[in-house]
């Protein structure tokens, strides 16, 4: 088992997410405090955005 993926706020800009998953992390966890829900954004999700 590896360390937990880092949490980011749901308002985090895509550019910041891209830098995170392009480097140390394969994915990040997204926290939506208003809805009290968690999501995951993977390197693949970011790649889909960046190639458009």
């Amino acid at each position, binding site marked *: *088992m*590896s*360390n*937990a*993926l880092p949490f*980011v*706020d*749901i*308002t*985090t*800009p*895509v*550019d910041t*997410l891209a830098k995170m998953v392009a480097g140390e992390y*394969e*994915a*990040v*966890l*997204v926290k*939506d405090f208003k*809805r009290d*829900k*968690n*999501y*995951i*954004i*993977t390197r*693949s*999700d*970011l790649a889909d*955005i*960046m190639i*458009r």
Partner: protein
Amino acid sequence: MTDKDAAVMTRELCRQEGIWVGYSAGSAVAGLIQLKDQLKKDDVVVIIFHDHGTRYIGKIFNDEWMLKMGYLDKAGMTAHDIVSGRMNIDITTIEKHETVGHALKLMMDNNFSQLPVTSDGRIVGSIFENKIMNLLIQSPEKRTTALKRS
């Protein structure tokens, strides 16, 4: 005013005001904002929203369409834009007492390459498909080992 101005404002009306209206309503508000310097403090402006957003689910309210049209700047996108299509889907996790084999099956069945690991529902770690595969290639007997010991 451009089509992009109207489309972006239509989404903002929904996001910020909770008003789910159509393209021309967004256009009307975007136009009003552009004219705001010509209005005096006591002026009253009435905008009639004559259609609704259901007709634009596949367009203005579709991130892919907005990106294709060049209406959605990547620079302005946030994590919310990426997860907006799965807001009602709970994230898949696995408890740390589950086995390595079960974790790999869960990932294969769902085409996941990583999973958050929880302890009593709280995220305490993560597992990755490639690392699990390497572990089982080297030590197949660890298939029945709990994740917390892997």
